[in-house]
């Protein structure tokens, strides 16, 4: 074969079309989430225009939500969202931490390999099903068994002294804590597993008990990751909708008492959106959605940065 033929053989084929078409198509779908996010912000910003114009940032301080007179203040929702989410973290995190420690430090291998998929499966139970359970089992249980106890023990505090209602902040907080539990526990488990065994064994060799090891080695090393897991749980609680909607009472009021009915931002969206009559009412709900998105974004971002730092990064999926 001559040189000429060789040149022809190796010559760049005309039109490297398929490669660039394929690449362009792929990159379009790769950046689709970015386009969607920008789209969400733009659309919510525009659709919330009337409410932003009418109330501005004072929207979040306003205590009255009255569709009939077109007065919209989101403070009851902001307050309710924060109270239920904080309760969820307070109740859920210690249990999640404990069970993650149980799985990592105590459980025999067989129990561990059984428990993990069970928790994962249960994490897939839809929110609305938790809500159903919450309405018919959790709420009666709390109001007949737990709340009297709390009243008797802490009745002196305004937190536990009102008459309140069956469907209330406490129920919302408890159901949220159940729902964030699998998420927080599974991230904590990963973070604990990432603590080098040599460190733990080193401490054991010095005669430390298991609790000493956890206290002096596991916790300090895993601290950032655990805080990250807590923030992820918080983000999930802030945006969680159905289960809370079904047990929190849905009254746009503000009360220091945990037994009082309340409302969350997500619940307001679920309940009022399709029934909103006026333009300002709709725009106010969209404004609420925008704020909710912004806050969960911040909390998620903090969480991810913290967890990334510990587990060393991008290769680990967090959901």
């Amino acid at each position: 074969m001559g040189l000429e033929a060789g040149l022809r053989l190796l010559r760049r084929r005309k039109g490297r079309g398929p490669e660039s078409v394929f690449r362009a198509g792929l990159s379009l779908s790769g950046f689709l989430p970015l386009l969607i996010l920008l789209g969400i912000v733009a659309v919510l910003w525009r659709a919330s225009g009337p409410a932003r114009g009418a109330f501005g940032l004072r929207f979040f301080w306003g205590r009255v939500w009255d569709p009939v007179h077109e007065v919209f203040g989101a403070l009851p929702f902001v307050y309710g969202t924060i109270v239920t989410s904080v309760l969820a973290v307070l109740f859920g995190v210690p249990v999640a931490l404990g069970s993650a420690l149980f799985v990592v430090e105590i459980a025999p291998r067989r129990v561990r390999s059984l428990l993990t998929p069970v928790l994962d499966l249960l994490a897939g139970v839809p929110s609305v099903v938790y809500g159903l359970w919450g309405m018919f089992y959790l709420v009666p249980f709390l109001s007949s068994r737990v709340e009297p106890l709390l009243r008797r023990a802490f009745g002196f505090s305004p937190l536990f002294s009102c008459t309140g209602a069956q469907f209330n902040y406490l129920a919302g907080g408890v159901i949220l804590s159940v729902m964030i539990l699998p998420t927080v526990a599974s991230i904590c488990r990963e973070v604990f597993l990432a603590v080098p065994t040599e460190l733990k064994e080193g401490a054991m060799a010095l005669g430390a008990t298991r609790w000493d090891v956890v206290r002096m080695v596991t916790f300090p090393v895993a601290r950032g990751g655990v805080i990250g897991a807590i923030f992820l749980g918080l983000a999930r609680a802030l945006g969680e909708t159905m289960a809370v909607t079904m047990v929190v009472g849905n009254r746009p009021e503000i009360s220091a008492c945990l037994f009082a009915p309340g409302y969350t931002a997500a619940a307001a969206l679920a309940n009022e959106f399709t029934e909103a009559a006026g333009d300002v009412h709709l725009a106010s709900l969209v404004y609420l959605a925008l704020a909710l998105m912004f806050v969960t974004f911040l909390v998620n971002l903090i969480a991810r940065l913290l967890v990334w730092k510990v587990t060393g990064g991008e290769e680990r999926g967090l959901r």
Partner: protein
Amino acid sequence: MREGENPPLGRAIKVESLSAWFGELQALKGVSLYIEANQVTAIIGPSGCGKSTFVRCLNRMHEEVPGARVEGRVFLDGLDIYDPEVDPMEVRRVIGMVFQRPNPFPNMSIFDNVAAGLRLGGVRNRRVLEEEVEKALRMAGLWDEVKDRLHERGSLLSGGQQQRLCIARALAVKPEVLLLDEPASALDPASTLKIEDLVREMKKDLTVVIVTHNMQQAARVSDYTAFLLDGELVEYAPTKELFTRPKERRTEDYITGRFG
């Protein structure tokens, strides 16, 4: 050349001051040598000396590593494969490659593995494919072992068989040069011998370049040997000469096992 008339013949490769980098790290430093057609050329040297990088530059695989860079020229007969006019894909069809770890495509059967290069190169005719697959498997000495189970997964074969499958896969696209990057280092002695027999056999049809850290292997299979050290070509000579009368002190040290 009309197809089927002559057996495919190997080509010579001339390498001119070839340098290669991974990011800031220079792995090859101005290597020049002439690889004879239809001969087996062995590249030896201690690990990290740049021998793998060297062969990966010969079929433009080096540039697939992120941050990698090449300078210098490589002529296939008279043609510079680093010419901007040249398509690296076409280069790789003419200069085939087999890797250190057997890498059959995990989703494909034995047949599909060998046919992959042809199929994805546009050959659709079932009969042609069957013929070429059989030919390649025979050349790789694997036909008798797998002819009754062509549709089993390639990844179910033994390590040595997998490596010969990879050789068959490379041969199926009818390359004129075959680069073997430590093809037997992950295999047991019996499989290694089979691969070595194969290498000696193949030079009838094409030019073979084989990287190895095993000097006995180089002595057994090759006609020429190049010794690389720290990315530089130390010595290049007919194999017999290099192993019996090395000209360079460093070569002598290496082949007598004084370092590395």
